[in-house]
């Protein structure tokens, strides 16, 4: 069983996964498809099965560009991109689960990185 409740994802995304008829048009239309471990149609199915932990641990949810092509073209109005947003939120809201320590950040900087991103990263990871 997943540590996280699928109800939370359904509630904060407002998505009804049961409307999905498994046509796969979301994945067929996704520009990030090749980058992903799990694909848009799988997001929907995995949320339905309650595999929230697996999704939260997967880099796939950060490959989503939020372009909403899947939302736009889904024949059943399922809105897979909104599930991704809800999953990302769930990750952010975790306490003490940072991937990085604030001290690790200087080593990762490159000169193209905007100033604002560096400040935000330091603020986020020093918590």
């Amino acid at each position: 069983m997943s540590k996280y409740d699928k109800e939370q994802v359904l509630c904060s995304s407002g998505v009804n996964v049961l409307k999905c008829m498994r046509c796969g048009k979301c994945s067929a239309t996704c520009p990030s498809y090749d980058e992903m471990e799990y694909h848009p149609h799988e997001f929907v199915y995995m949320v339905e099965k309650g595999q929230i932990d697996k999704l939260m641990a997967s880099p796939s949810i950060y490959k989503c560009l939020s372009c909403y092509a899947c939302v736009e073209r889904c024949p059943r109005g399922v809105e897979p991109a909104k599930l991704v947003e809800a999953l990302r939120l769930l990750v952010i809201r975790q306490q003490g689960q940072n991937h990085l320590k604030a001290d690790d950040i200087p080593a990762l900087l490159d000169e193209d990185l905007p100033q604002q991103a560096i400040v935000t990263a330091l603020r986020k990871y020093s918590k």
Partner: protein
Amino acid sequence: MQRIGVFVCWCGSNIAATVDVNAVSEALSHEPGVVYSINYQYMCSEAGQNLIKDAIREKKLTGVVICSCSPRMHEATFLKAAAAAGLNPYMVEIANIREQCSWIHKDMPTATEKAIILGRAAIAKVQLNTPLTAGESPVTKRALVIGGGIAGIQTALDIAEAGFEVDIVEKQPTIGGKMTQLDKTFPTLDCAACILTPKMVDCAQNENINIYAYSEVAEVKGFVGNFTVKIRKKARYVDETKCTGCGLCTEKCPQKKVPNEFNLGMDTRRAIYIPFAQAVPKIATIDPDYCNMLKNGKCGVCAKVCTAGAINYKQQDEIIEREYGAIVVATGYNPIKLDNFDEYSYSQSNDVVTPLEFERLMNAAGPTNGVLLRPSDGKHPHTIVFVQCVGSRDTSGCGKPYCSKICCMYTAKHAMLTREKYPDTDVYVFYIDVRTPGKSFDEFYRRAVEEYGVHYIKGMVGKVTPRADGKLSVQASDLIANE
């Protein structure tokens, strides 16, 4: 005062589970005029009907109230039973305590209360009922079929065969409908025209059938058995009684650039036209939107060449009023418009075609004389992709929420015909589900896969993009291979 008998039915548990039938028959037994009240498990059964018949005779009932299902279900049954026991059947009233009571309530006390109220209302009505005698009203023994496609044609032939007059109203210049545009039919792969055109000729020759082609129903009045219908016979600008269908006018007409609807605009016809060679009736029609003579009075070529003198530029729409006893609506279908689905590039590429356009491209009488060529450059395609379910099973508002049910079959047909004629062409079908119920239908689809090597891939196509080299690129995912 009437002597009324009340019969409360349990309908097994349909009524009895939600309505306290004992309480109902008990409460109704105290109503004025009620001399007998009883409940029984299945009032419509033979034993139940005998209860009613015996009570009518023994208690000398003059009225009967049956608390049961909807009168649509068993009114005729109970009326017959009452009549058999010597009671005038119009002295029977039904209180619907099933559909309008037990089925829609969950709470027994409320449902019981409502059943009693419904029973009381029926009893009050019987108090005022008087015996009636059934009358007869005359029926016009002529039928109207709206729509002259294959459904309308077969209907008209059946009605005519049964000995009645029947009129077909068809809005196109010829009967035949969508089937005239089909190449082959599934699952037998018979030629569509070989099935259809003899039936069209039968319609024209049958003495009981009268065809109003190029006509529309303008108004329907009246009631079952006695309809009065106004039919608008649109002006063809050609005298039907004189035109011989020789086709000379359609060859000489100088207006050559009219999109030909019979081939879905993939080629052109003249402003005066006969839709196709086997048209019934085979009469020329002038298209007022394109005819120069009708638009600005400059031409008149067809009138000059017509040896029968059939051209009449002054012809007007005509309203015909006819009486009918029955009307059959066989108005057919239209394919969905693709405006909401531009991810498939229908508007951007001539090589993205609808299934009906595909039929024309395969058909010997079509714009390519039956050679499958890309409409854009007339070259032979080496890969064909069929995108299933466009506009079907769509609850987002772009399409229809239902499955159209026939697309899986005609796609298997298209795929098979393509592979049969052009073995060097690869055919891919992107499907959500393959739905092929029916006699020999699933076998037909399996033949496409097993004998003809059609590639079926589960996953809807996401988008189609025209490429610089003139080919199309199709983006889809294979859900089973997850790639």
